[in-house]
């Protein structure tokens, strides 16, 4: 960890993690992420591990994604954005899904909301299909980006289907981020003009050594690395760690920058809501300006930067 940190700090690399569920993470993670060079994150709407049963749960969750969580992130110098949507799992509760569809327009235009997401298929049921399409229509109506979750089971077919449905509804593929890719899906995604995001998992599914190979084989155009760190076993430092590994494995610096920062910025900034000035050219965070006790800081030494040291 020390060696990697020195490397990235010398390289002055900044990272964006465009898929991370901070609601489930502690401030230890925020501290580590900030120190590792993550400047901005995007938190997609997702399920919480067990199904919601009331519309109020969705409303309060969405509210936390545009309220408390961005504030919590800001106390560690990280800029937090989110995507709002009805996730694939909970689309299966149709009466509830209908209510969520009514709720979405109240949140989609808020300042921190960069896309509709994460939506798509889980088991590829009829209900999932219905609400995926309904949200694609919303995306079209409001000219928004779409963040697509691809299934972990029957992935290749599910990914292709997701893309075909997007095109069927007339979406511009360069406005759609297809996430959780692997070696089997990436070519199809890139060929059709979609953005291919890769989630780096600690043990199973896509690991960071395989990611290095993906970049070596497919290049860095339209490829993004993320962590999807959530309430399960996952690593919120997946992006900076993968970047470090890429550099040590001989991947060109510019490809690392693209896959771990620039591509994510380029696509999500098309929402008009994500701007580099939100984290660049800011005065160093001064946590002493923020209040102690009744905040996320409790008696720690505040981490203060008066001038950023790079």
């Amino acid at each position, binding site marked *: 960890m020390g060696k990697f940190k020195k490397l990235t700090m010398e390289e002055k690399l900044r990272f964006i993690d465009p898929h991370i569920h901070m609601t489930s993470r502690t401030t230890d993670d925020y501290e580590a992420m900030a120190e590792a060079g993550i400047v901005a994150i995007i938190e997609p709407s997702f399920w919480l591990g067990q199904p919601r049963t009331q519309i109020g749960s969705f409303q309060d969750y969405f509210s936390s994604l545009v309220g408390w969580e961005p504030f919590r992130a800001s106390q560690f110098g990280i800029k937090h954005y989110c995507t709002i949507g009805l996730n694939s799992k909970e689309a299966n509760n149709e009466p509830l899904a209908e209510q969520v569809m009514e709720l979405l327009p*109240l949140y989609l235009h*808020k300042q921190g909301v960069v896309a509709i997401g994460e939506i798509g298929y889980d088991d590829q049921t009829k209900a999932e299909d219905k609400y995926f399409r309904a949200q694609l229509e919303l995306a079209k109506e409001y000219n928004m980006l779409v963040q697509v979750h691809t299934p972990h089971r029957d992935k290749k077919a599910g990914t292709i289907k997701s893309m075909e449905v997007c095109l069927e509804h007339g979406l511009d593929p360069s406005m759609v981020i297809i996430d959780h890719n692997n070696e089997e899906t990436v070519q199809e995604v890139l060929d059709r003009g979609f953005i291919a995001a890769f989630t780096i998992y600690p043990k199973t599914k896509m690991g960071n050594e395989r990611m290095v190979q993906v970049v070596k084989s497919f290049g860095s155009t339209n490829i993004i690395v993320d962590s999807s760190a959530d309430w399960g076993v996952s690593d919120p430092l997946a992006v900076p760690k993968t970047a470090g590994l890429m550099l040590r494995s001989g991947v060109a610096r510019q490809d690392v920058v693209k896959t771990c920062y620039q591509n994510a910025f380029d696509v999500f900034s098309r929402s008009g*809501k994500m701007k580099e000035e939100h984290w660049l050219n800011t005065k160093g965070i001064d946590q002493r300006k923020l209040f102690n006790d009744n*905040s996320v800081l409790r008696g720690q030494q505040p981490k203060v930067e008066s001038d950023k040291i790079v």
Partner: protein
Amino acid sequence: MLEEYAYQLDAITKHSLDEEEFLWLANTLKDIANNAGDQRLYIGYSLCASKVAPNKLRFGTDTNKEVKDYLLVQEFMGSDIARLWLLRMVLLNDSRFETPVRKIIEVADRNELEVFLKGLVFLPEPNRFQFAAVEALRTNISTVFEAISKYNPYPAKYFSEQQWNQMYLKGAFMQLDLSTIMDIDQRANKNLVRIISDYARERWAASRSIDPYFWRPVSNFIEGNLVDDVRRLFNSDDLTENGAAALVCYHSDLTIGDELLKEYPTLKLQVEQADITWENLKN
């Protein structure tokens, strides 16, 4: 006072927005008025952030100074004034909009909520939204707390004694600049003074300091424990604490105030000559 000039929001909004922006806003308002249902209001309110630039406000020559100063100190930008104006106009238009406005508060993001709280006094019958102001006291988000407590005339006018005390104590707890809370003298009360004394003693027992400004409300309640507290401030090595003690006594209507202050002739002179005031205490 500010509430009397709330109507000036009209002119300020027109002046501050570009022609295109104001046209969008006016059309949005028309849309809301002409259509049943509340979606357009919710979406319109949210869209202000992207349709109206966060530019500095522009004021005409006839703008009331208090209004101008307030909007500037609260750092209102074009997009903020647009939001506030929209709410004000729908509420003036039809009382039925109280319900959807409540919903807007319920689903507000941080910025939307802060604009709402800062602009509360400009809305018709703002006491209808007391629940939102009081709820803001319980927040963990410092900027939201500040939106209702800093420079804002709403709490002094509308909060109950318990709510006022809650705000004052939490402000101290959060190490907010208490001099930004308005009308402290007017809302001073016995319960608050007891709370102040207890909190100070808690801090002192932990060898921690308190903002000397914290003592401002105790002037007319110097009795019991407070006498010892004020003496302690007079005898402190900290000059600002000495100054605070002097101010508390000087502004007191009680004889004890005079009696205590008499013992410190230098300080007495300084407060009489306004060398030390609550305004300059921490300079």
